């Protein structure tokens, strides 16, 4: 059967080689289907390993809806999503913002949205970019395979949505909102960075949720038991330290140990942190993910053109859009807003292929392990085993640094002036590579705040410890976040800022 299919594809590509699939910009279901079949075939020839694809045609309004719910097809309701929606709607109507061409969901089957307003060229671009590029990244990158479960995320979101609305009808919208607000403030600190999270599943969630409620509550009660036990008293010359080791997942710690939370409130904390965990890999692989998808839409559509399946007009429109996507404004341009992940990612992926196919002496010196090797295998390895930080640290070549004319600025508030610490020359390559890599390290981008101690025998206060990175202080909005933390914890929360040498430089207490 597969053999026949392959043959068919082969004949089709030969027989239609002289005739492009379409010559107009209007799309039809039939055309989308034809382009999709061809793209699928080409992607298969390039050995892209993907989930099955589901293409969904949506309107601009639906795209705005999808935006507001962080791209997911369902989600629990919360005012912040409404705010996001209202903001985008306004900007879209005013023409300040174009809509993204694509949203793709890391699920099995992989759902890619095609917007009604787009031309057939853009639809083909989105299919190649999202339905094959991102899709294969989702399926194979180690962060996604270990940290997210594509087959169950939709189910879990459905569970979350239903659970939140149940809580709303049972405990009141306001109560639910208070908890969710507080959880959202801490959601970036609701992820395990090192521990592999458990798989999500709707049925299990529902059946276990009840058990979990009871069990959790009994654990909490045990921790906060006020009746003194004998052996505790005999050991009490040294104050017990709880937790015994600092905890990086603040929401998890609160879910398990906050003294006053009701079971349903704990479940809400859990939902927010589970969803944050699901998005954590995306935040760490922006450059790679976009670079990979952009590289493949470029490669696949060019292949389409080489086979005569895409017209010249198609290519002109595609290339114009592609060029806009990978444009990197220079630092002094009014359009500059940081390094464009599409530009950097696409250049690096293309550069990897170049190093494999046409290595220079410099490449052989910098990348002896793969210069001149099979490019598909090299790209595949890179895609599977890295995240932005390590990918840049491993693969940023001197050529890219020169092409982008990268330079590094050292801004030390103890100095009067800022300093150019490295530029795109022999002496600077290594430094720029390290600095750029660190720039994508969430560990140094986000403040390092961990649960340090709970005064279980005293005032039950929770102490968070912020370990400073390069003396960078917390933004003042931290005070607001502390209120949310205190709301969840139910007692005082203390935030200590610690300098690398271990001394406490600043303490902030939020009274409950």
């Amino acid at each position, binding site marked *: 059967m597969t053999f026949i299919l392959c043959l068919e594809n082969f004949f089709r590509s030969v027989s239609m080689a002289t005739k492009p699939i379409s010559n107009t910009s209007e799309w039809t279901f039939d055309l989308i289907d034809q382009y999709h079949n061809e793209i699928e075939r080409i992607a298969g020839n390039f050995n892209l390993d993907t989930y099955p694809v589901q293409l969904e*045609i949506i309107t601009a309004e639906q795209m705005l809806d999808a935006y507001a719910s962080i791209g997911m097809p369902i989600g629990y309701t919360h005012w912040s999503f409404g705010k996001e929606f209202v903001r985008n709607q306004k900007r879209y109507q005013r023409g300040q913002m174009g809509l993204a061409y694509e949203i793709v969901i890391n699920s099995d089957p992989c759902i890619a949205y095609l917007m009604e307003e787009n031309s057939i060229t853009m639809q083909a671009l989105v299919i190649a970019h999202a339905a094959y590029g991102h899709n294969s990244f989702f399926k194979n990158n180690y962060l996604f395979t270990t940290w997210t479960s594509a087959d169950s995320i939709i189910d879990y979101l459905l569970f979350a949505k239903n659970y939140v609305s149940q809580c709303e009808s049972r405990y009141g919208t306001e109560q639910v909102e208070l908890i969710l607000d507080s959880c959202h403030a801490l959601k970036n600190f609701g992820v395990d960075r090192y521990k592999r999270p458990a798989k999500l599943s709707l049925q299990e969630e529902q059946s276990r949720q009840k058990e979990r409620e009871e069990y959790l509550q009994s654990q909490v009660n045990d921790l906060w038991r006020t009746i003194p036990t004998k052996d505790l008293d005999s050991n009490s010359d040294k104050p017990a330290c709880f937790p015994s080791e600092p905890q990086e997942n603040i929401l998890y710690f609160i879910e398990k140990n906050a003294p006053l939370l009701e079971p349903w409130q704990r479940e809400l904390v859990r939902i927010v942190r589970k969803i944050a965990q699901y998005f954590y890999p995306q935040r760490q692989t922006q450059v790679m993910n976009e670079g990979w998808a952009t590289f493949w839409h470029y490669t696949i559509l060019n292949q389409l053109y080489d086979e005569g399946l895409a017209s010249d007009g198609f290519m002109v429109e595609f290339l114009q859009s592609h060029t806009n996507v990978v444009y990197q404004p220079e630092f002094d341009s009014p359009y500059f807003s940081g390094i464009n992940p599409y530009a950097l990612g696409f250049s690096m992926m293309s550069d990897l292929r170049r190093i494999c196919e046409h290595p220079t002496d410099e490449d052989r010196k910098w990348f002896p392990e793969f210069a001149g090797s099979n490019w598909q295998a090299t790209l595949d390895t890179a895609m599977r085993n890295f995240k932005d930080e390590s990918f840049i640290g491993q693969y940023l070549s001197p050529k890219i640094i020169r092409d982008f004319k990268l330079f590094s600025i050292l801004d030390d*508030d103890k100095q009067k002036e800022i300093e150019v610490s490295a530029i795109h020359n022999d002496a600077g390559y290594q430094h720029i590579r390290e600095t750029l890599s660190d720039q994508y390290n969430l560990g140094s981008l986000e403040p390092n705040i961990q649960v340090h101690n709970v005064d279980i025998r005293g005032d039950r206060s929770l102490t968070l410890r912020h370990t400073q990175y390069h003396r960078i202080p917390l933004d003042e909005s931290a005070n607001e976040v502390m209120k949310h933390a205190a709301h969840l914890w139910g007692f005082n929360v203390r935030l200590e800022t610690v300098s690398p040498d271990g001394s406490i430089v600043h303490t902030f207490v939020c009274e409950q």
Partner: protein
Amino acid sequence: MSRIVDRRLNGKNKSAVNRQKFIRRFRKQIKKAVTDAASQRSITDFDKGESVSIPNRDISEPFFHHGKGGKREQIYPGNKEFQTGDKIPRPQENTGKGQGKEASNEGEGVDDFIFELTREEFLQFFFEDLELPNLIKTKLTTITETKKVRAGHTSDGIPTNINVIRSLTGAMGRRMALRAPYRNRLKEAVDELNELLKQYEKTDQVIIDLQDEILRLENKIKNIPYIDTFDLRYNNFTDRPTPTTQAVMFCIMDVSGSMGQAEKDMAKRFFMLLYMFLTRNYEKIQVVFISHHTVANEVDEETFFYSRETGGTVVSSALKLVTEIIQDRFPTNDWNIYIAQASDGDNWQNDSTTCKHLLNEKIMPYVQYYAYIEITEDRHQNLWQEYLTLKNQWDNFDMQRIEHLNDIYPVFRKLFQKREHGN
């Protein structure tokens, strides 16, 4: 394998719930913005949405992130003339921005968060915590209003309700049924006669008997009536109670010489507000404009607001006209009646007591609400004093004073603010 799904027909307002939550959450800020907008808006274009702005800091969601300061190193693209070790004075903005990614978003976002309220939402906020006095009571009473609805057919009724088709089909059926036995016998008799004629003479007794019978049968068939009284069917109607929400609003304005264009303008704004407020509560609203000086006239809107007349003032003339119109056109069990009167308070001396009596006996018992606004910067006039006693007597009577344009909305709010239902 792969699938293409057309989702375009799926609902697009998936975010409506979240939008509602957002609006509810920031109702205090939105309300303030609406009130501000309302005061700047001309009353005539009240009937549309409004863009509302909320300070960004109020709606930001806090999270732990790095602030300014410390030591950080950042990579930038597009080097032109820099060499390693160059010292550059620190630029004013943009220092210490973590990652530049947000910069483009925040480009316009630094100032307030602006978004559109629809007309309904705008009015919702605008009239929030206002209510129509006595609304509940009338709703209950108007339930007694009924409507005739068709309810099948009956066998008796009045001639105008005869259902011709039903009646005639019934008659036809009856005729066929009654005719059937005679017809059969007639057919037999005719056949028999034809048989007998072959054997007997026409004068034979058998033949004559048979011919008599045939004649009798034919007569019987002929005598079956074409239509009978019990064929008649009548359309049946029953009464079904239907709640009506209809209101009539009387605008009474003094157009005597003492009311200038400015005062009239204020009165107009007040009436507009009231009208919009009523449209939110009633399906059907009629407005009756009554202008008066020494005599009162029912006029159209144009004349009401723009014609100028001179002369003295006799308020009771208008009140008399109101009672007549109510009696003629607005039966009080069908209509919720609201009266708003605007005047500068100047009235012919003895007339004010007449007004009081008229209101007490002929008007106040029948109306939902009577609002009097006095538009003047002078001291209160005699009408005000008389009305004060009314105010104490009637719950549904209220009066306020407007001095400036800015007073209109607050006064309106004061008149219609939600109050405890004491009784």
